């Protein structure tokens, strides 16, 4: 079903006038499942989930059946019989911070457990940090090892019962370690390439458990990440906006674009009473003042489910929008009328309407997905509780309202060929640019770190407010 919806955008609708493609509207995400799926694709990156049993040295350590703990088997005769284990996958890079923890279940004879990061070609019989391109925090001496050479004093030793964490901070390009919930220290990350979370045991009786995130962490990693993001934000906040009131202008243009006239009037009034410093400085009126009161009324009608009146008004004010009976706009309005019948539980009327007004659209491949979904509502006794129940909710109405809004804007001779301008407000265009720039910028950092995504940014807003 979803695949069909995407195909719609590609197949040109026969007989369409200025076909402003509604699937490019920001309100096309009515189905929460579809959105979740789209977002998952964006952020998909394989994560370490368990210990790797394939590449271990085998002789020196045994990994448990759940692959989340390891015990030393060797006899510790020299420095090349370490029971070292890597995670099954390298640390993900497309995020601000990666972190994992290990618990020292048993420090055994000599407490020579360690935790760190190693690369793919690491010699699987050495402690992390004893070879180049690896780093390790060792429990027996509390030292940090970062490649060949003696260790540096770094933090406290650790033993049975301790929980030690290791992380990569992609924002500051540092490794960091924690002990029992407190940060021990951080240092510059100078190893490149995929890095595997690594733990090691080296004396009789040593046993470690590892946590890749399935259980809550001892260390407040969320708080740490938040702090890092705030630090990053304070850097960007130092930038001076050329016009201090640009935000007002952008909010205003957003309200104009979608026809939120009451809000706009209230906003303008409040700004008029504010001292001159907050007023717009003589910018040209944005083109979206066109048809403002009409668009506001049309939106109100659609949001209240009155499609019949919507058709009447469009006929009166913008007949060219519904002139082509086979256009996308007509289809959306008819399918919404149909949906409203179902909402009101007037199933007979719904079927009658579908036969007269929707059937003609069935011949066009472009509308297949949407028609099938809408008509499927008839099959359910309780359509609101079905998987397509979202069609009965207000986001669907909003989608149709935004499509009509865009279509009306496109009748403005000034905007005729500017499809982007009809579909996207200024705010949306700026947010898209920010997203693309942020992702491009990240590719220059070897795809390490966070990139801007509006829904994530707003989610972190909420979290920081609750803390």
């Amino acid at each position: 079903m979803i695949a069909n919806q995407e195909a719609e955008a590609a197949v040109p609708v026969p007989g369409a006038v200025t076909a402003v493609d509604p699937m490019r509207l920001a309100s096309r995400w009515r189905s929460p499942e579809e959105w979740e799926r789209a977002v998952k694709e964006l952020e998909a990156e394989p994560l370490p989930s368990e210990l790797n049993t394939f590449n271990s040295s085998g002789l020196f350590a045994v990994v448990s059946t759940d692959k989340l703990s390891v015990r030393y088997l060797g006899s510790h005769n020299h420095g090349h019989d370490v029971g070292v284990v890597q995670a099954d996958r390298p640390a993900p890079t497309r995020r601000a911070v990666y972190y994992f923890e290990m618990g020292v279940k048993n420090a055994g004879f000599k407490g020579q457990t360690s935790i760190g990061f190693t690369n793919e070609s690491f010699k699987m019989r050495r402690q992390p940090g004893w070879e180049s391109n690896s780093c390790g925090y060792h429990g027996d001496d509390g030292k940090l090892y970062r490649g060949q050479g003696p260790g540096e004093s770094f933090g406290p030793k650790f033993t049975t019962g301790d929980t030690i964490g290791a992380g990569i901070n992609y924002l500051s390009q540092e490794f960091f370690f924690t002990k029992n919930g407190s940060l021990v220290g951080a240092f510059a990350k100078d190893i490149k390439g995929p890095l595997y979370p690594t733990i090691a045991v080296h004396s009789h009786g040593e046993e470690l458990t590892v946590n890749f995130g399935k259980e809550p962490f001892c260390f407040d990693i969320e708080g740490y990440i938040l702090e890092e993001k705030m630090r990053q934000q304070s850097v960007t906040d130092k930038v001076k906006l050329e016009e201090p009131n640009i935000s007002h202008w952008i909010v205003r243009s957003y309200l104009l674009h979608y026809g939120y006239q009451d809000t706009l009037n209230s906003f303008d009034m409040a700004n008029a009473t504010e001292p001159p410093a907050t007023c717009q400085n003589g910018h040209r009126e944005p083109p979206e003042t066109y048809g403002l009161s009409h668009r506001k009324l049309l939106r109100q009608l659609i949001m209240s489910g009155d499609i019949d009146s919507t058709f009447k008004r469009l006929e009166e004010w913008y007949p060219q929008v519904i002139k082509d009976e086979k256009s996308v706009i007509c289809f959306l309005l008819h399918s919404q009328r149909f949906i409203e019948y179902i909402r009101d539980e007037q199933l007979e009327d719904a079927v009658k309407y579908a036969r007269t007004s929707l059937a003609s659209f069935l011949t066009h491949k472009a509308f297949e997905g949407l028609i099938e979904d809408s008509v499927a509502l008839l099959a359910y006794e309780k359509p609101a509780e079905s998987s397509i129940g979202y069609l009965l909710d207000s986001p669907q109405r909003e989608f149709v309202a935004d499509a009509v809004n865009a279509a009306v804007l496109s009748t403005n001779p000034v905007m005729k060929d500017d499809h982007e301008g009809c579909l996207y407000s200024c705010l949306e265009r700026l947010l898209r640019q920010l997203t693309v720039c942020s992702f491009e910028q990240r590719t220059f950092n070897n795809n390490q770190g966070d990139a801007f995504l509006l829904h994530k940014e707003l989610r972190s807003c909420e979290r920081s407010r609750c803390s």
Partner: protein
Amino acid sequence: MFLSRIVLRDLDSIDSLASMASSKKVVTRDEWERKLRDVKIRKEDMNRLVMNFLVTEGFVDAADKFRIESGTQPEIDLATITDRMEVKKAVQSGNVQEAIEKINDLNPTILDTNPQLYFHLQQQKLIELIRAGKVSEALEFAQEELAPRGEENQTFLEEIEKTVALLVFEDGKNCPYGELLDVSQRLKTASEVNAAILTSQSHEKDPKLPSLLKMLLWTQNQLDEKAAYPRIKDFTTAALEDPSI
């Protein structure tokens, strides 16, 4: 010999062309527009961004209308915004005492936990007295209320000295610290009050939108060093400028 001179010269220009080409990645307009189209943004998230702006900046009525017109829920109780706005308005119109009383009505701990804010409010009060020409009242206020604060804090002392200096000049505007008499000073104090109240209500004191605009500026500047791509220069039109190679 003639031939070799030409060859050498050609090699030179080829070399510099190569280095020019390799220094920055070029993204064509088409490629960039394709990337822009692939971005997935939800309307409800943009609505939340706008609502956050209206609420944080204190546009109570607009926030309420937006709630009705767009179906977006305000993040905090709109009633708390009205109180906050009354305080802000009082400061902006120069009624500092009224503002202080209102703040204490709202939450008496705000001024206790914000000595700098309290000082700035008192400084504003002094400025208003000076502006009104109430010289003796101003001096009394400065000596009794402000001087003790100046003793505890060097920065406060410097501020007091600047403010009192206004009295010496006939036309305050000619004074080197004349900007203190400006409306912008009231706005600065009002903004500080707004932020303190928001923080006390566990709300972020700044709206998200300006932050994002700055992020866009910053990110474009960073990217400029590595790539040639369509930039947005004018935020009011969000128009793309072709990449300059």
